[in-house]
């Protein structure tokens, strides 16, 4: 798998510097308003700052005893806001760095516009849809388009990071070219398919920068929850003052705002957008571009994966696995004949036969030139290939082709050979019958090789409740055998594009979410219908437009990683929400007894953390609340640790770590901060 993600360290100095600056810019209330939780903290910070100034002016001679405490609270409240902004800026900064790199590929180039047979030079920015341009070796392709004439090798490393050139040709599934990539050889004529500013590169830059970022449905729902909790806690704190007055223990605004900020879910509120941006960023690092955050969320929810057999589940080519001789023929003879017939067969299958013969019977490869042999190439009429050497006439081919050939020589296909052929088909292989001088020698078992580790991955997917369906053009017998070997849950044999579409519709009708990959134009409708449609970058423009993700590496297996990234994104959100809410318990135990203990010393019994005094208790809670945001930035950006397992097991693990952890950690943290504050004489 080619990937251009040089693993950027989480806290790259340049990114940190830019993020620190952006954190200040983001204090703009109009930007803050999008995040209700942090907006409340900002209002609180402004309130305490104003009050602090008023106090300073009115008690100019001798700042009150509380001044030092009030000042510290005000500062830490501002830090809370800044830390949250910093988290978001950090997540964006990683995207921005990537966008900068992409922009370099987007330099203005000269396009050779073809119109009415004449070629004129225009700047690439003036190209419009349906313009036709000619690109010759060494030139940059001026915009996204489709090759309508010619074939060329193209360096797409600017987009994919893969340095090996790819072939782009007119017609077929490899016709799409991307602006900003370079033609290395030959000349192609390209019809432009997108206007300047709307090209793939532009979209990619916008995506990684987060400029077009819109809140995803789940993020919106979570924001509503957080806003609701904020209002509830606002209510609890606002009404606390009347009760405190009734009890003869009124509190200062500084204490009340501190309590409020500690109770509202600032941890998740501050990190929520960073988690979303980082999720998209992780996809980009896997060289996958998603057109929306919604698609990433949908990936986490996927119930059914449709996987093409060839290239995804099996490696593209079949390989010879076994020589099965006919009765009266030794395996060595069959291997020898097979090898001879395949020596000049340059197909991967042919080469694998030579390799197998060498491995099993130590038959060394022989040079055709030395043998004085005549090679009989495969033709559509005979559907056989073979060799004429030393009076030996060897043929190999599909069963019925060889049967016809034998018939001509007056020999029937031995029933044992037919049995072997059927057996191979049943095992999911492709039989290749070998005959010499009109006599059947036996069968070569060509095997569809399932990629290593696929069975385990499907097992993992199953444990996560995801069903895998293999799509293949093979007949049902062969398909069933491969499906069994690969460990997929189901298969669709002899599949036509319409069958794929029907399958998706059927799954969706029963409430399931479906993910698939595709590259051809005939995949486009299914890609559009699927909830997660991953188009291969090597595919056609139609496929790329239809899907909601593009894999720049054109690796269909990556669908599994995409699902994992989607799940990780959702899990991170859930884990930090749970953590944030559980934190409140400790904060209550820190603040409530402390602030009322002055009037009611008996409440010290509830001071289970033995915090030093009211001021140190409130300060510790506020500082903990601010620092935990910074402390959790790496988790928000990296995502919580994720291993495939059942929902029940995941829940148990995450509840233990983030639920129970969220209960315990702040007790420890607040106590520690209290010790430090007292040691530094800050309260």
């Amino acid at each position, binding site marked *: 798998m080619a990937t251009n993600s040089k693993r950027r360290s989480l806290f790259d100095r340049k990114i940190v510097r830019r993020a620190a600056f952006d954190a200040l810019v983001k204090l703009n209330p109009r930007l803050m308003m999008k995040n209700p939780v942090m907006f409340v903290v900002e209002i609180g910070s402004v309130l305490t700052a104003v009050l602090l100034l008023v106090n300073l002016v009115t008690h100019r001679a001798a700042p009150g005893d509380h001044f030092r405490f009030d000042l510290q609270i005000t500062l830490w409240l501002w830090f809370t806001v800044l830390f949250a902004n910093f988290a978001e800026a950090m997540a964006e900064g990683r995207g921005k760095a990537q966008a900068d790199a992409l922009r370099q590929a987007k330099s203005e180039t000269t396009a050779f516009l073809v119109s009415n047979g004449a070629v004129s030079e225009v700047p690439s920015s003036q190209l419009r849809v349906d313009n036709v341009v000619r690109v010759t070796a060494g030139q940059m392709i001026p915009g996204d388009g489709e090759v309508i004439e010619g074939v060329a090798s193209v360096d797409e490393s600017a987009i994919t990071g893969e340095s090996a050139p790819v072939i782009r040709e007119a017609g077929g599934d490899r016709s799409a070219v991307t602006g900003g990539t370079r033609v290395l050889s030959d000349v192609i004529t390209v019809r432009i398919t997108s206007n300047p500013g709307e090209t793939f590169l532009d979209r990619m830059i916008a995506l990684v920068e987060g400029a077009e970022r819109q809140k995803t*449905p*789940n993020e919106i*729902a*979570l924001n*509503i*929850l957080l806003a*609701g*909790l904020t209002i*509830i*806690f606002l*209510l*609890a*704190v*606002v*009404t606390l003052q*009347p*009760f*405190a*007055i*009734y*009890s003869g223990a009124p509190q200062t605004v500084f204490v009340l705002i501190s*309590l409020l900020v500690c109770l509202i879910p600032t941890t998740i509120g501050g990190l929520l957008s960073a988690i979303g941006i980082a999720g998209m960023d992780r996809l980009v690092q896997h060289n996958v571009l998603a057109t929306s955050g919604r698609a990433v*969320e949908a990936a986490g*929810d996927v*119930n059914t994966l449709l996987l093409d057999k060839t290239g995804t589940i099996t490696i593209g080519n079949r390989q010879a696995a076994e020589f099965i001789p006919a009765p009266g023929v030794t395996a060595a003879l069959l291997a020898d004949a097979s090898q001879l017939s395949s020596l000049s067969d340059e197909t991967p299958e042919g080469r694998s036969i030579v390799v197998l013969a060498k491995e099993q019977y130590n038959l060394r490869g022989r040079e055709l030139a030395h043998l004085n042999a005549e090679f009989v190439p495969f033709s559509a009429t005979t559907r056989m290939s073979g060799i004429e050497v030393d009076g030996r006439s060897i043929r190999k081919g599909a069963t019925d082709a060889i049967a016809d050939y034998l018939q001509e020589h007056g020999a029937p296909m031995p029933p044992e050979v037919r049995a072997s052929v059927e057996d191979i088909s049943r095992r999911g292989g492709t039989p290749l019958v070998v005959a010499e001088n009109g006599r059947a020698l036996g069968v070569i078992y060509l095997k569809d090789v399932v990629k290593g580790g696929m069975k385990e991955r499907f097992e993992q997917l199953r*444990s*996560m*409740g*995801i*069903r895998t369906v293999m799509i293949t053009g093979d007949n049902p017998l062969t398909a069933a055998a491969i499906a069994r070997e690969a460990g997929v849950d189901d298969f669709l044999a002899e599949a036509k594009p319409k069958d794929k579409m029907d399958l998706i519709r059927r799954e969706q009708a*029963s*409430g*399931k*979410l479906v993910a698939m990959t595709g590259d051809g134009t005939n995949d486009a409708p299914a890609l559009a219908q699927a909830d997660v449609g991953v188009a291969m970058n090597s595919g056609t423009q139609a496929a790329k437009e239809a899907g909601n993700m593009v894999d720049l590496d054109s690796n269909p297996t990556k669908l599994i990683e995409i699902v994992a990234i989607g*799940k*990780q994104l959702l*899990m991170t959100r*859930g*884990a930090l*929400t*749970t953590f944030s*809410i559980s934190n*409140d*318990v400790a904060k*209550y135990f820190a603040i409530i*007894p402390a602030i*009322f203990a002055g009037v*009611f010393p*008996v*409440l010290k*019994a*509830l001071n289970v953390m033995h915090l030093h005094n009211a001021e140190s208790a409130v300060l510790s809670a506020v500082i903990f609340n601010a620092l935990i945001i910074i402390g959790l930035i790496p988790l928000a950006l990296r995502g919580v640790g994720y291993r495939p397992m*059942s*929902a*029940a097991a*995941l*829940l*148990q693990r*995450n*509840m233990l770590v983030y639920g129970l952890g969220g209960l315990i950690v702040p007790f420890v943290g607040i106590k520690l901060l209290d010790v430090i504050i007292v040691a530094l004489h800050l309260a």
Partner: protein
Amino acid sequence: MTLNGWLQIAVFIAAILLLAKPMGSYMTRVFDRRKTLLDPLLSPCERLLYRVTGINAEAEMRWTEYALAMLVFSAATLLLTYIVERLQGRLPFNPQHLPGVESALALNTAISFTTNTNWQSYVPESTMSYLTQMLGLATHNFWSAAVGLALAIAFVRGIARRESKTLGNFWVDLTRGTLWILLPLSLVFALVLVSQGVVQNFKSYDTVKLVEPQTVTGADGKTSTITTQTIAQGPVASQEAIKMLGTNGGGFFNTNSAHPFENPTALSNLLQMLAIFLIPAGLTVTLGQMVGSPKHGWAVLAAMVVLWFAGTLTVYSAESHGNPLLPHVDSRASLTQSGGNMEGKEVRFGIANSALFATVTTDASCGAVNGMHDSFTPLGGMVPMINILLGEVVFGGVGAGLYGMLVFVVMAVFIAGLMVGRTPEYLGKKIESFDVQMAMLYLLIFPLLILGFSAVSVLLPKLGLSSLANHGPHGLSEILYAYTSATGNNGSAFAGLNANTPWFNYSIAIAMFFGRFIMIVPMLAIAGNLAGKKIVPASAGTFPVTTPLFTILLTGVIVIVGALTFCPVLSLGPVLEDLLLRAGQTF
């Protein structure tokens, strides 16, 4: 705490767990309109009712129509009760010739019974005629419970149905809930209560000669000798049965289930407690059956049992230890005394059954009492308050408990559901922003009313504080308890607070009204929205809602969301009072 006490508590919960399944299965059949044993008797009545009222029993309602029908019905019955109260002086069945009820109190009472709260700012035996008790109040005990049942079933249908626009028919659910469930159960239970000595008559009050005349000194300093006592009578058993089964809790007499004519024996006491939990417990089974996941119903019931047990343990333990300020008084339990803190408790019930009753009546939004919560120890009295503050979801009121619990389930699934790597889904239904929005609204109204009204009351010396019998943290508890009980539609009182003033009558009426109806609307909106969704088939990746872990999670969310909101005020009320009491200060 004694072994005997714990055994009685164990018998109680074992009986509830045994009764839950038959009760729940029966209710499933009733609301699915399947065959039951009572059909030959009741189906003709049902058909007749529909024919007379012109109801089309086959017409399905959207959530908005369902809500509207419910509101219209409640408003109409509210008005009826108000009119009966105001006019009772001119109406029959009034042997004591009680005058019409004053308007603020009449309105408060009408709202109170319509909302299944049964908050009573009055002394029933000296305020309400028999006709008012029966036609104005006991009827509401049926109706408000049937409304709650209907709403809960509508919510369950919302979860169970797939891509449906409707939730059922309110009138049908109301009728079937009343005819098949509440009426038969009440009839049997009333007769059982009569066997224990609960009265059922239309006699005027008895006057009996005191064995030992009492001499009292009046406020004006004059002494007088009392030689007779008036003993109130009335159709008690018929009202008592539905008071418990419908989790209404409004007593026929002022002292509610502590009165010997309401709750005469240990057996009647046990049966009354069972009656409170019977339908709410059964509804969890109904939930499981209707959504096709019986285990989910049990998981929800388990969360209720856990919270019930925590409450019972706390009250029982607090009350058994007695008053720490009386160290020289023997407050150990023995053969001759109950021990512990017996102030405000009936000797025939003792500590264990008073503690259990207090927990049960506040877990469910019943509000009947067999002892005075105001006289409990601070921590013992805090538990009933917390039970209500959790949102009346620990068993909860008939129907209301289940739908309140389901809103918490939606919240729990939403908060923790993400942790399994899927957008949150509850039994195959995706929980999306609209659902969260409505759930938050539901959860928000509750603290808004309780904390808002309490905060205003403690700031108003003339209107609020003048009603207090006690000051300091205990006074705060009294005010907080009143609004908690009203908003939670519980109806039990902490006493000590004179709530029959215009301020309290009106503000508590608003709290009761909004606490019921304003919360129902977002709840039904969630149900309607859920009904329209597809159901994602369950798989290994589905958020588990049937496991013990889910029970723990649900309990945690209820405690954290419920308790954290009220933690500050509780620490200035009962918690502070308890600590001060231990330090020797009383109020």
